[in-house]
């Protein structure tokens, strides 16, 4: 089980940081907010230069947030869709009042670009591990959107790469930077509900059922479809298979199980103290479309059992609410937390949550982006460190595998392999279409 404190990251190269920061310093001189003792006499500029890979739906929010940071500069954008990358650059240039934002099609060019300190990976899930690892190899810190990776094996490879190269990697599970979720997890960890018995998670329904067409269509001008597909098995272009909808096709993502599950299971993992571990058994019985374009579960229902006996059930909600929630059941009753509200079986429970009287204090963050940038500056682990993101995504992927197999699977969270289950073990990884690989 993980420590409640954020350890410092000692693997990082201070020389490399100074070198990169010096480049930034030469470009724009801003007052440093860092104590000079951190960097000696040649204190670099405090500005962080960011590149964004993937400029679609989720990247828009990141751009708008980062444009509000005076000490962060979005210096480059990359997308395989020319219309999207140009629109993103226009937006950034308009805000800054210049034409400095670099535009590129190939993420490898951005990863290797000098002067970029951090890269935001906002691609479809299919690409997360490859783009993030390429950035890490090139000495960049990385913010990876959730779910961290498409497969369990890719998640471990990403963690290994981050540690090997000493890079900061923040997972985009921003609920960890919400006081509501933080205080609830801390309350549970301090035994506030007494012995924790079970956790119930509801996630929004898959809003792409059957009926999507996968009839081949001409690739529209401006889109590099082969690059969009990347490591996924070949499939001809179809508009419904591409932007946004990718998340409902198993070759590119894993549906609401990872889309929303990554947020709410993450809070459960936090409350369980399982940030470096996971369940030992998962049973799943979902429903999947039998034909058409979409392949991810339309009904999610899986139950995890942890070594301590706690059970976590994650299932689809059908009330049309576009949010999840996590409800913890313990000896004292229950407490339920979502993005909009906290409720409990008794009002005093909620008062105790906000009072934060427990001895164990979980690491806290008031802003997910700022936490990432501060982690870059201090070279300490961020609130949603890559290992945490990997473990949460693993739970989601275990749920998906159990549902696809329509049965129970046993999992060894230490070895990160299934127990006596060769079929499930083959689903930990995927083959990558050439030229792509994790090498």
């Amino acid at each position, binding site marked *: 089980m993980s420590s409640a404190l954020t350890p410092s990251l000692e693997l990082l190269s201070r020389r490399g940081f100074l070198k990169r920061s010096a480049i930034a310093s030469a470009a724009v001189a801003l007052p440093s907010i860092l104590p000079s003792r951190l960097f000696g006499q040649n204190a670099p500029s405090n500005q962080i230069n960011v590149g964004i890979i993937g400029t679609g739906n989720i990247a828009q929010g990141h751009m708008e947030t980062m444009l509000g940071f005076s000490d962060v500069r979005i210096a480059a954008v990359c997308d395989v869709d020319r219309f999207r990358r140009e629109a993103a650059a226009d937006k950034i240039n308009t805000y800054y009042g210049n034409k400095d934002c670099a535009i590129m099609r190939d993420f490898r060019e951005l990863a290797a670009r000098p002067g970029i300190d951090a890269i935001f990976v906002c691609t479809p899930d299919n690409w997360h591990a490859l783009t993030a*690892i390429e950035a890490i190899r090139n000495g960049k810190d990385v913010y990876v959107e959730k779910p961290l990776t498409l497969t369990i094996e890719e998640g471990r*490879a990403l963690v*290994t*790469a981050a540690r*090997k190269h000493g890079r900061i990697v923040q997972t985009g599970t921003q609920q960890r930077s919400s006081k509501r979720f933080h205080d609830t997890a801390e309350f549970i960890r301090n035994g506030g509900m007494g012995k924790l018995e079970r956790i119930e998670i509801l996630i929004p329904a898959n809003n792409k059922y059957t009926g999507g*067409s*996968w*009839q*081949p269509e001409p690739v529209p001008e401006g889109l590099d479809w082969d690059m969009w597909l990347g490591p996924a*098995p*070949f*499939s*001809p272009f*179809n508009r419904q298979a591409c932007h946004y909808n990718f998340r409902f096709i198993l070759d590119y993502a894993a549906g609401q199980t990872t889309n929303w599950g990554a947020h709410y299971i993450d809070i459960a993992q936090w409350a369980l103290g399982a940030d470096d571990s996971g369940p030992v058994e998962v049973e799943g019985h979902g429903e*999947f479309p*039998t*034909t*058409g374009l979409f392949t991810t579960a339309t009904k999610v229902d899986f139950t995890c059992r942890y070594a301590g006996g706690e059970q976590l059930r994650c299932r689809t909600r059908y009330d049309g609410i576009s949010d999840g929630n996590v409800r913890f059941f313990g000896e004292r009753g229950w407490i339920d937390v979502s993005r909009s509200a906290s409720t409990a079986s008794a009002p005093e429970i909620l008062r105790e949550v906000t009072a934060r009287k427990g001895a164990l204090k979980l690491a806290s963050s008031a802003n997910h982006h700022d936490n990432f940038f501060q982690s870059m500056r201090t070279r300490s682990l961020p609130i949603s460190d890559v290992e945490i993101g990997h473990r949460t995504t693993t739970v989601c992927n275990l749920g998906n595998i159990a549902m*696809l*197999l*329509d049965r129970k699977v046993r999992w060894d969270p230490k070895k990160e392999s299934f127990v006596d289950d*060769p*079929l499930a073990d*083959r*689903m930990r*990884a*995927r*083959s*990558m*279409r*050439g*030229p*792509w*690989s*994790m*090498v």
Partner: protein
Amino acid sequence: MPQATEPVPNLQAAKPKAPADYKDREAWFTASPDPWKEVARLQFGGDRTFATTVHRMIVHAERDQWPVVEKRLLQTLGDPEISEAGRQFVCRMLGLVGTEVCVPAVAKLLMNEPTADVARLTFDVLPVASVDEHYRAALGRLKGAPRAGLIGSIARRGDARAVDALAVIAVDANETAAIRALAERAIKKLNSTSTP
């Protein structure tokens, strides 16, 4: 209220031709498509219900039933008219339950550049030692993107016996810089356990 006037189909006019022979007639009544054969006709954009049926049969099959499942998949793979989408599907399924038995058939796909990536859908997750031999053999045959993908697969499987062949690629002036660099990284990975 007036009734909607839908034209009533004249079923008699269709004159279904049931065979006169008793056995043929019985077969005519009971015949239905075999999903294991139908998946060979799977098209991108087409009905994939048969593929779903086969997938579910595979994941529900008990371990001692895998040999039969594998055999049926290989029969489908051997269909000379198999479609591109059908071949991709079958190779994925062999990746789930395949054994040494499927290696020769899939190895033929591996040696052919247009189908090499599809072959790796099976081989990459197949815990069978002979796969490594076929991967090494293919290393000298494939070019371009299929070769790059293959190098990644070799490194992932940890086949240290491929290092010599990779070393040749890493210094091959006729090879692209990207693949030479990839070969170098693969060698490093194979020589080290702290990867990627």
